[in-house]
């Protein structure tokens, strides 16, 4: 996503820990509207704002210029999760976590378990990605999650969750699933496999409710 009109806007003050929407509100929003937009362009973001989805996942954007976008989402009563590892302009470190907190992000997604505590300390929801490219990567990811204790896990590729669920232990945090989610049948199968919600770039699925 390109620069926004608040490029020269003052940087907002850091919030006190816990003053942001807490994990429980975020998780309730996911449960209420379990098919969430994963957006990579300004145009997608605009359309996601008009959807019934309650939580927007920003995958590609200028991470240094997110305040305006997040503010627009909040005006519409939506929560915003930002993918720290994918947005431009930010390094995946504690300082960037603080930056996203000041920009108003409600949640941060990362594959870096060592940042989970920092995300929580900033009053945001910590979502750790669980990448399942092969068995050893999955095992390493599960071990990392056990250490870092994120609020939410995002399993990728989500479309295979129904087939791969038996490879996962009973997980404490609720689970998102994203990646190649393309149809209502995919969504139904993933939710039936135990995911709390899915993320998808397929706009026709945004806001789909549990059936």
């Amino acid at each position, binding site marked *: 996503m390109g620069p926004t009109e608040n490029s020269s806007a003052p940087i907002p003050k850091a919030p006190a820990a816990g003053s942001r929407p807490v994990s429980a509100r975020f998780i309730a929003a996911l449960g209420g509207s379990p098919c969430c937009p994963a957006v*990579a362009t300004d145009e997608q973001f605009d359309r996601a704002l008009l959807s019934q989805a309650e939580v927007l996942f920003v995958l590609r954007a200028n991470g240094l210029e997110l305040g305006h976008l997040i503010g627009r989402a909040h005006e519409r009563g939506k929560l915003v999760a930002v993918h720290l590892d994918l947005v431009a302009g930010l390094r995946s470190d504690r300082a960037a976590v603080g930056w996203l907190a000041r920009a108003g992000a409600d949640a941060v997604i990362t594959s870096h378990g060592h940042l989970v505590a920092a995300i929580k300390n900033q009053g945001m929801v910590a979502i750790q990605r669980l990448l399942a*490219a*092969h068995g050893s990567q999955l095992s390493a990811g599960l071990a990392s999650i056990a250490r870092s204790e994120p609020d939410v896990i995002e399993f990728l*590729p989500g479309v295979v969750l129904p087939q791969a669920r038996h490879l996962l232990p009973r997980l404490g945090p609720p689970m998102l699933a994203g*990646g*190649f989610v393309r149809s209502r049948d995919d969504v139904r199968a993933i939710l039936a496999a135990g995911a709390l919600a899915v993320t998808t*770039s397929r706009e026709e699925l945004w806001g789909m409710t549990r059936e």
Partner: protein
Amino acid sequence: MNSDRIWHLPRIFEASNGQGAWSHLGRDVGLLLRDTNLTALVANAGHDTTLAVDCDGVEGLGDDRAAAEFLVQRLGFEIVLTRHAAMATNVASLGGLAFLKVFALDTEGMRHSLEVHPRGSAVGTAICPGLVLPHLEPEEVSLLPRPILAYGLLDAPEDIAACLAIADSVVLRRRAIEGL
């Protein structure tokens, strides 16, 4: 070097760390060494089967030209899986068959992964996880340089069959092979 060589791949590669006794499972089953070390690689060189190695999971092994020469020319591992495009190119230039790992975790990630694919005649695609392959749209499969190896999270017979309908070969653990 012969980049136009025709490769005859087994339909199945058994994944192994190569650190125990290995018995041949049949003519159409090769051996893929992964999550192993240099010592085990040397010990397994010369097996009377089609040998492959996932060089990203070999303790002590680099990903440069010297590593490619050691695998292909010194040990005779002609089939090499790697996540590094340069390593794949090196293996192919030495007369081997490389499989570049394409991580298919989501649409955009797969696209980025494919952008660096060398697309040479001796560089195929190891799609990771293999389990996702039947979920890809035909246009996406058509973008994967062949041969295609489905690699990762495969154990149910129906999933394996679905992958074999698309891929040239699949990588399985012994338990899954015995369940077929």
